[in-house]
């Protein structure tokens, strides 16, 4: 027992020494030739990696990508502050970008980059731009819903009692409520929410759960983002007993949120980062976004994902996307009506 204990302890000591040493060695940045960029990406690796790989191929810039949840990454960047190792922040929604921008951590982008994107799809400080469009829709069961709602106000009617679903903890739902507050004011927004609550909507954590619930017959209509139908169908490998539709043009329910990018003040490679953003806004790349990830193009609104109406036809409400950063008002409202 004694020598066995000695041997295992020796092994343990050596192993731990080696491991600890390797951690310190591992972290030293290898200054290899050629540029590199550190990216924090709230966009899923599955979807964005091919684009990034192509960028590296074309330009030779090496990319160190850190994947995570957009909001959690934004919180991380806020904590890191001026010590952040990141050059670029790729976010899945405008709120996270707005939060980082509001903290003064993003650097202003060059004019020629800013000009590529419409004003409503970028920051008012010119420190982040939208890249793809993600639209709010409603998913419904064609079997059980014969008359489609035209406006979000239609959902307050008594006929929808017990048949609706929302995901109140989801950032895209909260973005929608923010836009509701922005355009109608606190009081009217609270009134709408109270009216919705009277219809006892079922609450889910994730948008995909709502789509699955419609497909399974648990609910008849839910508020989600446009690409979830496609995402869930892909996963289940079959067509769903569900369809998506937009509210009437100009309705608040058609909010467009954007995925976007911003460059941090701490960026060591500003030029390289701008090059990446420019690449993501290129015609060819935007077309690929539309076909591969099923999103809308910010740069070319005429490009439309398969089976969906054009952006122009949807006429989403004009909302200042950077206000989506401060979801505190929205969350307070949702807490007041009992949804959070």
């Amino acid at each position: 027992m004694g020598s066995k204990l000695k041997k295992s302890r020796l092994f343990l000591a050596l192993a731990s020494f080696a491991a600890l040493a390797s951690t310190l060695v591992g972290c030293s940045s290898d200054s290899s030739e050629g540029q590199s960029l550190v990216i924090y990406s709230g966009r899923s690796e599955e979807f964005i990696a091919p684009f990034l790989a192509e960028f590296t191929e074309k330009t030779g810039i090496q990319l160190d990508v850190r994947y995570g949840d957009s909001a959690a990454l934004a919180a991380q960047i806020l904590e890191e502050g001026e010590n952040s190792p990141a050059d670029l922040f790729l976010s899945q929604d405008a709120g996270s970008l707005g939060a980082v921008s509001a903290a003064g951590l993003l650097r202003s982008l060059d004019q020629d980059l800013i000009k590529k994107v419409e004003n409503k799809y970028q920051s008012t400080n010119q420190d982040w731009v939208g890249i793809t469009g993600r639209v709010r829709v409603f998913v419904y069961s064609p079997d059980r819903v014969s008359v489609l709602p035209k406006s979000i106000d239609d959902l307050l009617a008594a006929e929808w009692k017990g048949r609706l679903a929302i995901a109140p903890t989801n950032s895209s739902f909260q973005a929608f409520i923010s836009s509701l507050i922005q355009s109608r004011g606190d009081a009217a927004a609270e009134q709408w929410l109270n009216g919705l609550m009277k219809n006892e909507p079922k609450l889910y954590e994730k948008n995909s759960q709502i789509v699955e619930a419609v497909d399974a017959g648990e609910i008849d209509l839910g508020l989600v983002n446009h690409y979830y139908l496609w995402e869930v169908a892909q996963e289940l490998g079959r067509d769903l007993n569900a369809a998506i539709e937009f509210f009437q043009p100009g309705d608040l329910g058609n909010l467009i949120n954007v995925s976007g990018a911003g460059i941090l003040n701490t960026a060591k490679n500003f030029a390289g980062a701008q090059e990446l953003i420019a690449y993501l806004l290129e015609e060819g790349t935007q077309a690929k976004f539309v076909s591969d990830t099923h999103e809308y193009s910010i740069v070319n609104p005429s490009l439309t994902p398969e089976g969906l109406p054009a952006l122009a036809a949807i006429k989403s409400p004009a909302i200042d996307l950077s206000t989506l950063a401060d979801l505190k008002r929205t969350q307070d409202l949702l807490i007041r009506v009992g949804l959070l």
Partner: protein
Amino acid sequence: MSKKAHGEATKASHVPLGLFTAALFSLIFIAIPLVYLLRRALEGNWRSLSALLFREKTAQIFTTTSSLVIIVSLMASILGVSLAWSLHNVKIPMRNLQQALVILPIAIPSYVFTFSWISINPSISGFWAAVFILVLSTTPYVSLAALSGLRRVDWSQHEVAMTLGLNPFRTFIEITLPQIRNSVAAGTLLVALYVLSDFGAVALLGVDTFTRSISNLYRGSFDRSSAAVLALILVLLSATLIAIESRARGKARQSRNSARLLKQPILINSRGTKLAAQILIALYLALSLITPMGLLLLRFFNSAGTIDYPSLFSASISTIVAAFLGALISISLALPIGLLVLTGSRLGNLADKGVLLVHALPGIVMGLALVAFGSEFPWLYQTLGLLAFSYALLFMAKSVGSVRSALARVPQNLIDISATLGKSRAQTFRAVILPLAAPGVLTGSLLVLLAAMKELPATLMLRPTGFETLATEMWALTAISRFSEAAPYALFLVLIAAIPTFLINRPDRGSNEEGDIA
């Protein structure tokens, strides 16, 4: 027969410097997240913070969280003790295998658990669903502790009581339970602290606990000062629980006698009891092990053709390496603390409790605290070392209990003899204390290892870029609804975690490893 503190012989007039320093370090490390929270909380303006603290919603969250903790702890402790007793005292077939299986659910992360049950019944949600799932997944902590306690009971008292005509149930309550009370209390404390910190289950089931609200605040309004305030309330709740457990531990009879007249109970052979025991165990295993594992295996075989094996294997290695390092750091901090507690040192006691204090902090809080701290040191930030360190901080509490009780069980007379023979304290430690305490120390480190393998939020924030564990890969896939593709990662995670889980059971077997002297 002095009643002075255990370890009297090892205590000179002062505490050994090495131990002192190690414990001091532990306290400094624990202070990192606490200081972070205080700083962020103080940054907020008082009006909005007091509005946060005293609003109705916070009271609701407090009630929900407390109820969840109390109910789950109560049910898990009753179920855990019942299972342990059935496994230890009743003559059921293949006892060792069943003991190992009953502990195995620890290897399953709560989010995987919840996903499995949701896929069976998509509409399951709410408070009682969370109770159901949390009880199933945390009972092993109590079972493990209770089994360990039962193995150290002196069964002669039990047999005498039975001979005198006391019925089995009363015998258990009056004779056996007081002897295992400490262990059960320690196990239940772990359950309670875990429920406080759990995010996976409560998020998917929509239960409003502090952890969920904290996460929503960080990710929704980026309001870090409000989130910090809520996290500090969590710390206060933990402190309350720790104090309760400490008092429960203090009052129970300490059986530190190395000599036991009867080390094994006479197994109950009555058909009725055997059937009842077996049904209880089978039911528990069916709900907490067979169901989730079965579903994982099913999904795995469905997607067998499309699995990315290189990614799976590299993630497995990364998971094992990071968790192993975390366990190593954890033990090197827990051992000195345990030894200090033995010498009755106040610093030791402080460190012992302090470690538990941060145990209930959700991963996202610990992650952000270490981001704030670690980003100041570029050579440290986002390295494997910092990640392992975060695991140690998060889960050290799981090892402290086992280490402390393992060290406390080393018979005083052996230590005295060693001192009489002229051995130094360090020699006594190496030759006498460590070998005898090794099984408990190993159990403690395996518990940390397990928890580290399953960890998600802190890992996402602190891992070196490109370093993926099974949990992070699983998360990346479930985030885009690719549940079938995530299944292989979940399956491998559980299989790998099953290995230390099996090992946890083995060292405790056999009474000769506990230093019993006839």
